[in-house]
């Protein structure tokens, strides 16, 4: 029998890290599917990557910066337009502590 990479309990934990609530049905489905997908991902274990640099940008651009100058930005009203809950000039957030 193939070794499972992830248990249902672990899937619950990762979903919590990702801040996505899952139904019990989704937890079961994802556990099965994740194990199939991770089994396929094992393929890259075969590749010898000793001493090979990782690729972050394909054309090797690095440390792109610009002058720190202020430019016109969105007016408050525009910036708040898409917020589902707001009050005065603020976005209304749920309780944090």
């Amino acid at each position, binding site marked *: 029998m193939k070794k499972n990479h992830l248990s249902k309990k672990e899937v619950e934990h*990762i979903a919590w890290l990702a801040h996505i609530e899952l139904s019990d049905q989704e937890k079961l489905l994802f556990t099965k599917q994740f194990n199939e997908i991770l089994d396929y*991902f094992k393929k890259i274990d075969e*590749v010898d990557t000793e001493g090979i640099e*990782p690729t972050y*940008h394909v*054309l090797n651009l690095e440390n792109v910066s610009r002058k720190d100058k202020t430019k016109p930005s969105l007016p408050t009203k525009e910036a708040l337009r898409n917020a589902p809950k707001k009050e005065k000039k603020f976005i209304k957030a749920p309780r944090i502590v």
Partner: protein
Amino acid sequence: MPKLQQLTARETIQKIQGNEATAEECVHAVFETIHKLEDKINAYVTLIEGEALKKAKQIDRKISEGKPVGKLAGVAIAVKDAICTQRIPTTCSSRMLKNFVPPYDATVIERIKKEDGVIIGKTNMDEFAMGSSTETSHFGPTRNPWDLSRVPGGSSGGSAACIATDEAMLSLGTDTGGSIRCPASYCSVVGLKPTYGLVSRYGLIAYANSLEQIGPMAKDVYDCALFLTIIAGYDPKDGTSVNVAPKDYTQFLKDSAEGLKIGVPREFFGEGTSDAVEKQVWKGINKLEELGATYEETSLPSLEYSLAAYYIVAMSEASSNLARYDGLRYGYRVDKDDGDWATIYSQNRRIGFGTEVKRRIILGTYALSAGYYSKYYLKALRVRTLIRRNFEEAFKKFDVLIGPTMPFPPFKMGEKIEDPLALYMSDVDTVAANLAGLPAISIPCGFTKGLPVGMQIMASPLKEELILQAAYTFEQNTSYGRRKPAVK
């Protein structure tokens, strides 16, 4: 005589500037087709007919007053709903962004407007561009115009279908692992993924930002080259944009394959490639040989690992990019005020995201988590370097590499959607270009049992002109691209 909506963008521009038709007539004709076919195709999420006709009338006025107009004056353009358009809803085909109206335009949209292109609507896609069939859209699937029971490919399915049916003259797609080329192949249109960094991603809703590019989709290669010329160019607002001299890509379209050196990697004809696709693509390669090119079979051994490396990188980046959807500044928010931040955040995301998006975010979170980062993400980035090196070697010997865009013809709706891994496998020939940042095009190269087959042509970074010329030569000497679907 062809109807106005059946013209290419180039022919439309000539008609309008030669006073044979007005921009309003041309845009109106496209909307006529849209009203006739949208019930069946569902290529669009949002249509802006009133605004588009108003813009067309402004262009007509400019022309009648003898004022100069832009290079895309009067051309009806559809935009994938992953690209921000000021005051026009931009949903990414997700419930999460159903009510999102961007306060600004993406750089590509500014460039289109500057050239007087007429934006007519936003096209349907897989939710957050995660899919190869346009079945994961919150607004229902787009259907393949060649066979309504089949998928149009994805994730830019709407942008491809609208070109095949004359519901738009040009369209913008985005390509993270094949999302322009796959639907171009399945709908029998031309679709180009540019070199990473050639087209600004400012205003593109991010999925996997080290892989994705915005690119042109068109009825023929000339239109594709013209549209690329307009949208390409350095943008200081995108830190990954490359600062290279602009090119007019239409200047490279010569009907000649003389001296073109083609490499045919055998990995592109691997297990799972249908015989019909293989046969048709080889016919295409032989056609180019007839027209003066030479070809040689070759091997890029690391391509075998491209699909696994791609999905690890894409999911990892997705988990980070989509962390921004908290339902506070924009996006879906549950209607309750009690409960702490983490609970509300998790509920917004449970309801706002569809199944495939959740799957990728959670697996990506796993691949980046403590203890697994180097096993998955870092390892995939190292494999990515090997894939790039394989391509660099190949391009010392060949001008272009050719193979199928998709390993098999368009499949039935519902056939693969319950089995994510089976669906991922359909990207096996397209993801390598994204990992290596190469330009790659899909062009029509025939049919099997009435279903389109696409041929993929790739070149070294920033050598779009080589693939465009090869594609143009092929198109000029074949008739596949001119065949149109009879939607029924």
